[in-house]
């Protein structure tokens, strides 16, 4: 899949799962996906200055009936930890977190972030899934949305370069 096709597939998956408010902060690897979010008039798009405020915005919107997703880099996930703990987990509020997996195997520059991402998610008790195949994205997003609503906890989907159509996928990964 091209980058644009992958972005469309992921975004259509979000819409099919009922997501109607999306808070975002850019990463170059997320540019096409954010373009899809921005272009859709039926989805409220909230561009953020810092990811932690997005956790609050999504929590508030959930309380009045919206289905929300937050899209960010893993650096933004680290920025958001106090809000995730003392708002989402403490109040048992669901949220779909779509986190670009900077520092994933073969991804330059943020290998330290990459090595901390899954351990921190695990420490917080946030169930997480690494996404590598764009064609699977709609079904995986649907399942993750069911899990977050049902468990009343955030669920994290880690978005890799191959998921986003930015490098070839490997059969064994």
């Amino acid at each position: 899949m091209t980058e644009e096709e992958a972005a469309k597939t992921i975004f259509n998956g979000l819409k099919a799962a009922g997501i109607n408010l999306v808070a975002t902060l850019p990463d170059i690897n997320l540019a096409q996906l954010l373009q899809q979010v921005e272009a859709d008039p039926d989805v409220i798009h909230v561009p953020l200055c810092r990811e932690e405020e997005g956790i609050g915005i999504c929590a508030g919107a959930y309380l009045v009936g919206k289905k929300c997703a937050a899209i960010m880099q893993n650096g933004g996930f680290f920025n958001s930890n106090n809000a995730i703990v003392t708002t989402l987990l403490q109040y048992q509020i669901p949220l779909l977190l779509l986190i670009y997996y900077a520092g994933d195997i073969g991804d330059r520059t943020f290998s330290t972030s990459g090595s901390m991402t899954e351990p921190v998610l695990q420490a917080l008790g946030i169930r997480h899934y690494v996404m590598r195949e764009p064609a699977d994205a709609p079904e995986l997003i649907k399942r993750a949305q069911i899990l977050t609503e049902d468990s009343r906890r955030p669920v994290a989907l880690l978005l890799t370069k191959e998921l986003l159509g930015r490098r070839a996928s490997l059969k064994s990964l």
Partner: protein
Amino acid sequence: MKCEAQMKRFDCLRTIAVAAADALVVTSAGAVTLEWNALRPGDGNFRVRTLGLCSSIALGMALGLPYRKVIALDGDGSLLMNLCSLPTLARMRPKNLVHIVFDNGVYEASGGKKTATATGTDLVGIARAAGIAQARWAHCEDEFGTIVTEALNGQELFFIGAKVTTERTKVPPYPIDEVENKYRFIRHVEKTENVAILKTNLPASYT
């Protein structure tokens, strides 16, 4: 407007309670939650535990329910921790949101150390510079009441700053925990907006 005496937060809250009608109200971490709930108890109040997140949670509510007034009752220490919520408020410009900040110059719930507003930081100035056109200081109670009434009757994003004393009013403790607060708040929205938010699924054996 000339001011005879410094404002007390509790008196300002009383003014808001009279004018708030059915507005959803988000209160910042700290004593403002207890004082507000003593004045206007009810399930349309949501208490924030994450310092800083009051303005952001209120923004999410305002975007989700664009025809319902939402009031954020924030503090200086809280807003200073999440100043980037102001450009985001300005960018989204929800016309149903009234953001009120009680500025007492101290981290009141954390031992009374001074915040940056005590050394000159101007929160209304920051809000205006962030792009919120209706950002004003209320200098005394009369002026506070006038601006709050204008904001609640208007159709525009408002940011209202009020310099208040550090005085706390003795009120009962907040009676419910976070999860009960969440459920009561959602049920209140369901009832007053006539919508279904929390749906219970049938067990798998029934589907």
